[in-house]
């Protein structure tokens, strides 16, 4: 029984996690289109160092990595603070409303964002009310990436708000009253007392959002299928599934795994140290 219960998880783990990891590392050492396969050692990795689309996606990923996690943390913490003081009824309704966009995250709501940011779409109409000329929102790198980050945040922060609200309820309310007596303002209490107490949850959200920012795919695919907005994730799709350079795509997948590991390692280390 003791071991029998582990069998289902182990089967799926071995077949669809461990084996794929080994397989993708192996594939990254080959040049293959599934018809002709040739061992080329580390050549794929060496080629990537001069590969324009890959370097561009690396540069873009840095941008996603800078904007998205920070924006996610700011938005989810602020909205949590707005909700936290309200009555239970408001809190319950708010939890539902912030989560609805999360349900449509990815390809589903991308359908409508395409219209919002179309040249003759909603955003440009709003600008026209202020006599601002229409903007080609997805015409260049920086603006596209910032918009995609904002869209991703609207469809992910709801889950984080629910997690943050849960970690707030574990704080002893008497601390608030004590500090309030000392004449601290509401804002001061939140920044100086409450925020440090939920620091580990905030760090977790930052980490999750970091990993997510390297994997942005659907919005690029549906809204800006361009090299200048591509993440490594999107570039893997193009190299492999579109251009059949499977070895090259595998090498990028391996690099993405390594980058994710290193980032999560350092992020954890930093947040552990600051907790002491």
């Amino acid at each position: 029984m003791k071991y029998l219960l582990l069998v289902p998880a182990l089967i799926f783990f071995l077949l669809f996690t461990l084996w794929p990891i080994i397989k993708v590392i192996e594939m990254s050492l080959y040049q293959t289109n599934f018809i002709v396969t040739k061992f080329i050692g580390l050549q794929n990795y060496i080629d990537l160092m001069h590969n324009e689309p890959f370097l561009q996606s690396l540069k873009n990923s840095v941008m996603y990595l800078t904007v998205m996690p920070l924006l996610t943390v700011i938005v989810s913490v602020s909205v949590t603070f707005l909700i936290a003081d309200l009555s239970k009824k408001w809190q319950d309704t708010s939890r539902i409303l912030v989560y609805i966009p999360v349900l449509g995250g990815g390809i589903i709501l991308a359908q409508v964002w395409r219209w919002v940011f179309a040249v003759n779409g909603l955003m440009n109409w709003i600008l026209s009310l202020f006599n601002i000329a229409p903007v080609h929102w997805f015409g260049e790198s920086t603006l596209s990436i910032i918009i995609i980050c904002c869209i991703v945040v609207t469809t992910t922060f709801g889950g984080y708000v629910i997690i943050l609200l849960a970690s707030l309820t574990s704080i002893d309310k008497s601390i608030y009253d004590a500090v309030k007596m000392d004449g601290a303002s509401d804002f001061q209490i939140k920044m100086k007392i409450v925020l440090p107490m939920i620091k580990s949850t905030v760090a977790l959200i930052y980490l999750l959002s970091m990993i997510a920012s390297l994997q942005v795919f659907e919005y690029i695919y549906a809204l800006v299928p361009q090299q200048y907005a591509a993440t490594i994730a999107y570039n893997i799709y193009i190299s492999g599934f579109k251009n059949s350079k499977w070895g090259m795509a595998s090498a990028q997948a391996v690099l993405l795994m390594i980058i994710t590991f290193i980032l999560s390692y350092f992020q954890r280390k930093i947040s552990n140290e600051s907790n002491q």
Partner: protein
Amino acid sequence: MKVINKIILIFIFVLLLIPIYFMVIGSFQDIQGIFVMPPNLFPKRVTLSNYSILLKENAFIWLINTLIVTVATVFLSVLVSATAGYAFSVYNYKHKNILWSILLIQMMIPKISLFIPWFVIIKDLKLSGTLTATILPVVLSPMGMYLARNYFESIPKSIIESARMDGANEWQILRMIIIPVSKPIVSVLGLFAGVSILQDYVWQMLVLSDAKKQTLIVGLIRQSMNRTGDIALLVNPVGMSFAAGTLLLFPLIALFLIGNKYFIEGLQGAVKE
């Protein structure tokens, strides 16, 4: 102070829900109605043509396929997460902690990195293009196992111990004590698995190429981008993509509203240390 909070919050909710609202409204309008500015808050001329073109072919098969995939994924995923979570909460293994972290390693691996080897493995298993191929790789859920273990650890060990003393075997303990109190965690795991498979566009899009073997999310999105044949003449691409989005979003919202209590419990369980 609270009034200001409420006003800001309502403003945020309106901003969040505006796109969804326009998507639904737009799905019932023709192309002129969608791009008229200021945007119509209510459709001026209601048309169902976006839906009728979208659902013209195969829609029923897609629905059936989606049901099969969802039910199978939910069943397998709940089974895998619950058994692993339970095993790790009651039994001791050699190197238990290391084994546990390895099992959860997928949390730290970008899923897209696994798509290529998954694709190859699916091919080796002769499952290319089948519904099974969309299910098997996504069954293992680190988040699910984590939540299940947390849940089962909250069941007092003394109850299990005393049942053991009374001579109950492991199977009886599972059946008489654990399964009866497992409904909340099973609901949480099931809902999370259900929502994630219904949202899972990328992997399904990569695997399912045959129009007759697609799920709703792949079929509807592909059909809304279809510009071939007689469709091209009467096409309203934006309206069709709105209709696709609407058809895909509302089952998810319904599922969430039905299981809202469990959902929020599950997300809250994710922070429990």
